[in-house]
């Protein structure tokens, strides 16, 4: 696993925790401890996302000055065999 993959995995793990908690809160909106945990995961995800995008390129289209980095390989379905 290269540096990019390692960082992406870390970002995805934190992002997944946030996503799963957010969905839990859809049906448990009064659960304040889950809401607090969600805030912490979101903060951590934001930090990791910023660092990832600075080093390896944008995760969403339309970031300023990133049109070449946006189209660049690898796309998510590509792996070392492409």
């Amino acid at each position: 696993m290269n540096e990019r993959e390692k960082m992406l995995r870390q970002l995805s793990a934190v992002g997944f925790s946030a996503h799963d908690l957010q969905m839990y809160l859809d049906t448990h909106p009064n659960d304040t401890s889950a809401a607090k945990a969600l805030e912490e995961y979101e903060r951590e995800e934001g930090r990791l996302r910023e660092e990832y995008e600075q080093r390896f390129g944008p995760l969403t289209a339309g970031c300023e000055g990133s049109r070449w980095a946006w189209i660049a390989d690898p796309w998510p379905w590509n792996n070392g065999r492409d």
Partner: protein
Amino acid sequence: MFVYEKKLQYPVNIRRPNPALAKIIMSQYGGPDGELGASLRYLSQRYTAPYPEIKAVLTDIGTEELGHLEMVGTILYQLTKGVSAKELKEAGLDQYFVDHTAGIYPAAASGTPYTAAALQVKGDLLADLHEDLAAEQKARVTYDNILRFCDDPDVIDPIRFLREREIVHYQRFGEALRVATDKLDSRNFYAFNPEFDPPKARSN
């Protein structure tokens, strides 16, 4: 609206092609209990959903299913990448090859092209939520059946993740059903359809 993120929900990195496995996993791309159908089912049911919690659950799960569709597409692509026409034929994919070469096309394992006939939008809260609970269980069984044929840890790992998500979604839909019945007429859940009957027509 939707915004694309240039990453998978969970990593997929398959090092060894295996077209025979692709032939069965294909069903979770375009089959009757697959991710495309799941996504369309929830994202279509939500328009007439009556309560905020239900709209949120249908939107969030329907969106996650699109991410799963991308994961399954990635698995199929990596399982068939670099495979010759002869090897595809040996795996039983010669008919698929004639129509799609090595492209990723939404069809069931049986070869039937994707059809919305396998999903329902009934426009009735209780009927739709029960359909959704059943859909998650059927997708879970499909992944269990797929796992019976998998011996490559590179494939087993993301398939297990997808299977687990079916169980979590089932849990969320169960809670959505509880939210729904809490808001209905406790003496008769079928007294009115909150997706259709105007409030003044309701008995309480």
